[in-house]
């Protein structure tokens, strides 16, 4: 009896040891681990979740075929919109979870901190997918950081290029008194002035972030009678700005440009309250361009998550394809080869065509749509109309400018 138990134990032990020995050999074609740090609590969660959904949708398609014989798997960590938490989470994902690629996040502070302290130090590829600080792929860019998000330089330049085509001469600049607001304003004004030197700035006003009542700001802008206004706001203030544009009647009198004003995440909650006639720029609209590819993407997204994709989902979709195609091109799961492979890589754009990862600064190059808010009969909320497409390279800083900014 005891003898048979002994032999059984030995046999079991042998099987375990053998299978353990075999495991590394079998997992030669292992899964690619992606670590996602993003904000999944608080007001910013709306964007974090949209990006995650876009990423998941792309993975479903990618994993059917597989990458280098394995799959792409991911784990998420909530940064709670805080730099210290985000940094710790990123370190934990790299040290303990041994992720191959880091992805995230909406908070520019987190993105810059992780880029510098984790990605650059540990030589881990890091793809930024929502935050818009131009320093990420500009002045603070390095070999391991990439961005599939639009940035302030690009957003501002898109505004400048779009506005240069309009007849307005006298401009007022107003916005949230913090880094995002000023960065967008500087970029938009610099580019507008370069393209159309006869524009004139008649005044500026800046309010503290989260300012609840923008009406006094707008009534005083209207009193100055500029031809157009460059408004630099985002987040909760964006809704306040849209409401005040409508209630003061400013939207009907003076055209304003706000980057991302035509985002449906902004317009949909406002319903019929959203003002018409506001100019905006964005890199993704679920209803434009009306290509079969975009329609299929929107349909699949709506079926899976119940609402149409926003720009974070678009950025995240690209990110997933960069990871898949990057490793496919690299030929093996190797971080250095992956970085080399990403440079200049073109991946499938969900609206059709391809998107290139620019080699000089690791910034994805996609077009921007410049449109104006309008009520259309087929939507129960205000959408963008009269859309013009601004070419990707036209709205990005040039490689030369990037080089200059990195020298400083």
């Amino acid at each position, binding site marked *: 009896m005891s003898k048979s138990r002994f032999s059984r134990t030995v046999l079991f032990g042998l099987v375990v040891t053998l299978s353990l020995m075999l495991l590394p050999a079998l997992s030669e074609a292992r899964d690619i681990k992606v670590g996602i740090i993003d904000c999944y609590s608080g007001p910013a969660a709306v964007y974090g979740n949209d990006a995650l959904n876009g990423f998941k949708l792309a993975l479903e398609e990618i994993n059917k075929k597989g990458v280098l014989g394995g799959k792409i798997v991911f784990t998420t960590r909530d940064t709670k919109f805080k730099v210290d938490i985000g940094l710790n989470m990123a370190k934990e994902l790299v040290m303990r979870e041994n992720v191959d690629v880091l992805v995230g996040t909406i908070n520019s502070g987190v993105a810059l901190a992780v880029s510098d302290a984790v990605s650059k130090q540990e030589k881990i590829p890091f793809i930024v997918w929502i935050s818009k600080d131009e320093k990420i792929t500009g002045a603070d860019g390095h070999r391991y950081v990439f961005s599939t998000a639009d940035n302030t330089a690009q957003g501002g330049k898109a505004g400048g290029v779009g506005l240069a085509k309009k007849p307005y001469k006298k401009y007022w600049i*107003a916005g949230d008194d913090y880094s995002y607001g000023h960065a967008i304003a500087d970029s938009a004004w610099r580019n507008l002035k370069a393209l159309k030197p006869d524009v004139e700035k008649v005044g*500026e006003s*800046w309010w503290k972030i989260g300012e*609840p*009542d923008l009406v*006094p700001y707008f*009534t005083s802008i209207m*009193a100055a009678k500029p031809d157009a206004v460059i408004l630099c706001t985002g987040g909760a203030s964006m809704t306040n700005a849209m*409401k005040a544009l409508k209630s003061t009647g400013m939207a009907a009198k003076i055209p304003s440009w706000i980057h991302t004003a035509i985002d449906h995440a902004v317009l949909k909650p406002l319903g019929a*309250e959203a003002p018409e006639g506001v100019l905006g720029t964005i890199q993704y609209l679920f209803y434009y361009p009306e290509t079969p590819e975009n329609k299929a993407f929107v349909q699949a997204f709506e079926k899976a998550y119940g609402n149409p994709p926003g720009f974070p989902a678009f950025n995240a979709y690209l990110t997933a394809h960069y990871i898949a195609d990057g490793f496919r091109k690299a030929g093996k799961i190797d971080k250095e080869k992956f970085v080399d492979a990403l440079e200049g890589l073109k991946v499938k754009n969900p609206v059709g065509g391809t998107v290139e990862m620019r080699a000089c600064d690791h910034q994805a190059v996609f077009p921007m749509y410049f449109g104006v808010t309008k009520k259309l009969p087929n939507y129960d909320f205000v959408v963008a109309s009269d859309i013009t497409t601004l070419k990707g390279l036209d709205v990005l800083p040039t490689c030369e400018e990037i080089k200059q900014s990195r020298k400083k």
Partner: protein
Amino acid sequence: MVSDLGALGSQFFVGLSRAMILFVVCSGLSFVLGVLRVPNIAHGSLYMIGAFSAYSITKLVAGPAGFWLALILAPLVVALVSLVAERALFCHLYQREHLMLLLFTFALSLILGDLVKIVWGAEYKSIMAPDVFNGSVSLLGASIPRYNFFLLVVGPLVAVALWLFTNKTKMGKIARAAAVDREMVGAVGINVSWVFAFAFVLGCFLAGLGGALVAPTVSITLGMDHNLIIEAFLIVTIGGLGNMWGAMVGSLIFGLTQAFGVLFWPQFAIVFPYMAVVIVLIWRPRGMLKSVW
């Protein structure tokens, strides 16, 4: 010149209407400070709950009726929340020192903030004013939102109602007496505990009313409480702690300096109301009007 006059006029009206919302909220804060001696930091959270409740009510009842109903019911929801808080927590703490109360109400503001997140979620909310108040009115060549005129009516109404209550009703007189000398009020056989409960709920009702009034003009979002509470404390301080007319004066100073600051020096408009606060406090450290503390 006409346009300059128009600009001055429009800034005056817009500043005045902003002051009215501030007044409604601050009169409540001031009342609680005066009668209960509680520096209630959670007052801002109750204002936020008022705005979120107004959102829910307008979602349940469509059309302009929803807005009017929200204006009445949202403050009552807040009053109910504050009644529970008062009976369960505050009524045991009135004798504590101010620092303790400050910490306690700060903790409460964090708890209420999280509760709002659990109940309503983190997304931005937005409600519409009824059609009568949509659009703007042209005045001296400047356009002013119609809703702001409505605020100009509501603010003085609240002030008059509060004045009538504190000066002409028995309950109000007792509350005022309790503010001056609570031992004496207890000694003549009045149930001070319930007087305090009533005063607290009334103060919080006003916070809720402020929240419901502001709801159509802003995005209803987490964090709107912290933005307001700092301004509210400054206003109550420059007006004179616990003095209702002081809250009015403080709100007017705050609202108007902001509106005119935006017109004259827009790059630094943020600074103006705070500069006014500093000047008032140097000139009159105890506030513009008589403080009850």
